[in-house]
Structure formats: C-alpha cells, structure tokens
C-alpha cells in the first residue's frame, strides 16, 4: 500500500510542479527516485515534526499542494496541535500520510504504534480520514485527498499487502463490499482485512455467510454504510485500533445520530498501553483481534460459541 501511494505521488509530481513532499526524515528507500527526479519538490527538514507541519501550512498558504509523510505517530500525534491550528483550523488541503497503522511495526513498541490515531484525527472536523485495506483503496484515497479542498489523513500499514478489489475504479466515499453475505456484517479497514477474510471463510463451515466490507474513508457521510447496517442483523467492527475512538465509535455515533437502533460489536484492542512483545500476528492474537478471535466473537454473539 505504501508503495502504491508513493508511486502515485511520484506520478503526480511529474506533471504537478506545485506538489511538494515533506518527509520527516522517514521512508528509507521509498523516496530515492522521487528525490533524484524531483529534487526541487522533495524536502527533508529533519527530525522536527512540529516544524514539518508548520512549514507545510506555510507552503500551502502560498498555494502549494503539500504532502507530509512520516510514520503515523509522528504524523498525527507528535504535532497534533500544529495539525489542528495550522492545517485544519486554517482550512489548508495538506495531505498527511502516516505509515505503520495499528501495530504494523510490532515489536517496535507502543511509541511506534498507531492504535488511537483515528480517535485523534476525528477531533478535527474538516479532516478526511482514510484507512485503506489494499493498494487500490490506497490509491483511491490519495486521489480523493489530492483533489479535496479539505485536509486529509491517510493511514497506511506498510508495503506488500495483497490486492482485494477486482475493479481499479472504486468510489472511496462508499462502503466497499468485498464479499456479500447476509445477516452478519464484518466491517473492517486497513490490513485487518486479512484476518476478517480468514474469519469469513471459517464461519462458512459453521453455516454463517458473513458479509465482508471495508470502510476506507472512515468519516465519509455516504449512506452506503448505514444501508448495509440496516440490511444485517449482527454488526461487527474489526479493527487494529483502540476500541474507543475508531471506526466502531464512528459508526455508533452515526447510528445514534440517525436514530438507528442496532448493537455494534467492537472487535478491537482494549484501551490499554501495549506492553506485550511480539510481531503483528502475535499482538493481534494477544489482544483478541485475529481471525480466530473474530470467529469466536461472532459465534458467541450469535450464541453458538
């Protein structure tokens, strides 16, 4: 996913000389060709996140399209107030690209995880929030952000995730039905799609035909999400994010606002600092968000477990 976005940025930079990339001394190997081919448009100010965001705001005030790239915690947490005041409050269409969503970088430790970034991003009213599940969604997210008048935050896991969409042309503002089913809706985003797909397969053997869907633009106001919720009896939001503040919370708020009475089961990481050590699969298992845990949670909710 990271490479598909990086390649798209490179493509844009060829024709759009107004586009600038600020990297907070991050992205080893990702920007080598960009740096060579578009040296004027490449800025690495160093390890100074507040400056990166303030500088991006200043350049955007002068009419430039600016992308700030770093690992997710250094994109949205360290310079949170700069994003709030300098980018969002000033309504500047800067694109923030954060890699290492969730616990992608495990066992790097809590400082390098982004399991509360959606909760933080949600506090900024005009910020588009994207958490794509495959390279096609990632590209579509960037395309939307690129032409949006609002600022955007795109959180990506890393590179090498498989493509799940068949069509290249998707409407990123809508719910993406990956596998249609009935009764049970497994809603997810980012690389958790792999766990959800596995769970869906396992549930089939229990005669449960679950729908798998992704919501790449987390705060999209499109009605497709609520329509899908209405069409299913059991809703599960599976995410590599704290249970409070993520897509589950976004959905519950929306249902509440729209007066839709439906229970939403959150399969997410408990709001506690992560001290467990292990790779992403291990951490998912440890916190009960891997495919087996999803399977169990669904069966339990359906009282078959």
């Amino acid at each position: 996913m990271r490479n598909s976005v990086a390649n798209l940025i490179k493509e844009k930079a060829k024709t759009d000389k107004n586009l600038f990339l600020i990297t907070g001394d991050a992205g080893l190997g990702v920007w080598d060709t960009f740096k060579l081919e578009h040296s004027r448009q490449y800025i690495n100010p160093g390890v100074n996140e507040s400056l990166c965001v303030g500088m991006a705001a200043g350049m955007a005030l002068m009419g430039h399209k600016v992308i700030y790239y770093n690992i997710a915690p250094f994109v949205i947490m360290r310079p949170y107030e700069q994003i709030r005041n300098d980018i969002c409050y000033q309504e500047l269409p800067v694109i923030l690209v954060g890699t290492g969503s969730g616990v992608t970088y495990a066992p790097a430790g809590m400082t390098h995880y982004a399991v509360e970034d959606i909760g933080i991003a949600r506090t900024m009213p005009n910020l588009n929030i994207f958490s794509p599940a495959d390279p096609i969604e990632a590209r579509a997210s960037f395309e939307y952000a690129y032409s949006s008048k609002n600022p955007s935050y795109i959180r990506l896991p890393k590179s090498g995730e498989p493509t799940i969409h068949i069509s290249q042309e998707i409407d990123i503002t809508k719910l993406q039905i990956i596998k249609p089913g009935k009764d049970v809706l497994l809603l997810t985003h980012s690389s958790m799609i792999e766990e959800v797909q596995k769970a869906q397969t396992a549930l089939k053997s229990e005669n449960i035909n679950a729908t798998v869907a992704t919501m790449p633009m987390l705060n999209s106001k499109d009605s497709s999400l609520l329509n899908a919720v209405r069409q299913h009896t059991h809703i599960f939001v599976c995410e590599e994010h704290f249970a409070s503040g993520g897509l589950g919370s976004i959905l519950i708020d929306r249902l509440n606002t729209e007066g839709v009475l439906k229970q939403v089961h959150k399969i997410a990481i408990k709001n506690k600092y992560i001290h467990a050590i292990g790779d992403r699969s291990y951490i998912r298992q440890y916190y009960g968000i891997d495919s087996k845990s999803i399977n169990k949670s669904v069966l339990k909710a359906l009282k078959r477990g």
Partner: protein
Amino acid sequence: MDTIVKNIRKEILNIAYLSKSPHVGSALSCVEILSTLYFKVLNIKKPINIDRDRFILSKAHAAMALYATLYHKGFLEKKGLYGYYQNGGTLPAHTDRFTHEYVEISAGSLGHGLPIGLGIAHAMKLQGNGSNVFVLMGDGEMQEGSIWEAAMLAPKLNLTNLTVFVDHNNLQGYGRATELVEFYPVEEKWQSFGWDTQTINGHDSNAIENATNKKSDKPKAIICKTTKGKGVSFMENELKWHYYIVTKEHLEKAINELSV
C-alpha cells in the same frame, strides 16, 4: 511616525477598554515594530496584493496591536476594529485568518509562527517571488522547541527573505524570560544557528527600519529591546499588565499621557 505610533497606542487602549480584554501590555510593547513595518517596510497595498510581503504575528495575543495598525493604515474599517472581542463581533483576541483578509495567519499558540513563516518564505523562493516574510514573536516564545526546529533549518534553506523580530520586553505571563530560563546570551544563540543577528531599541522606528533593511546573505533575527506596556507610565514594565483589564480611569489617564 510619532503621531502614528501614539494613535495606534490610543486605539489599543480604546479597544482593550471596550472589550475588557487582557494582553494590553503585550500589544503596547510592539507598536513601533508593527507601525514601522506597515508604514515603511512592507510591500502591502489596498486592495490586497498577492505578491505582498507577509507579516506573521506569532505572538498573536498582541493582536490588538495588529488590528490597531491595520486600522490606521486604512486596511481595516472602524466598524471592524470596534467589533473586536465583542459578542457576534468581527475580530477575536487571537487571530483567525478568516476574519479579515489582512490577517495572514490564525494563531495564538506560541511557537507556530516561525515554522509557518519559514514555509511561506521557502515557497516564495521556490516561486521566484522576491517578497519577504517578517515574523514577530515574544521573548518568552523563544522557550518553544518548534522555534529552534525552524531556526536550525532556515539558514540551510538560504531563507534570506525571512526576518524574525523578538519582542524582548522581558515580561511573559508569569515572570521574566531572563529569570525563568537561560535566555542570555540571546544574540549568540541565533548567531550560532546561522542567523544574521542584531540587537536594537525596539521603540526606535529608525533603528527598526535600518535593521530590517540591512542586506544579509542569511535569515535575520532582530532582538528588539522593548518595554512591556510602553507609552503608559503605570503599565510600563509591570507584570500585571499582561492580564489586567483597562478600566475607565485607566483609559482616561493613559490617553492623557499619550496626548502630551
């Protein structure tokens, strides 16, 4: 210039009294810096010109000084000025760029103006635009880490179009900058980061103009020695006038002093 400076001070006191807003001392401290820039230095016109120089008020709690200067320059209507800090009014205590076209940035949290100013200055260079950026910050504001992030980068980017004014009145919200931190040596701090540094009397318009016009192949930092509450005897160098509210008696006494 003297009359302009006095009139701006009077206007600051008027709107501070009408609005019962704090930070009058901070606003009075930087009147010569703002008036010299707007009346003698900045390329900025009416109607607003896209190729203008940018003035970034990083110490945005002194917004009254900016509003009063814009008013005397003819960029801001009286109605706009007097809607300052009022319910349903026109201008907030800390700047919001959507409230007026001559307010360049939304600010109020310290340490934001210089990184933004650096971005603007860099964009101007990239665009081959010969304009300049002037950032005004407080001396207490130098305690913000983001200032030094930008200070370290600006010379590297060769931002000769960027000038920083430090309003060194040595009184911040709850103390003196020189007592709270190792403030001195201050010129040397900026110098060692690669800036062309000068220390001047921040209430001397000629000195401000000369320091600003000095040719240099580096970004410039101008330490302006100032007095908080300048121009009003009972407000000068008094910590309480960071937050104190101007009463009718204060206003009358202050206006009398400024009318001499």
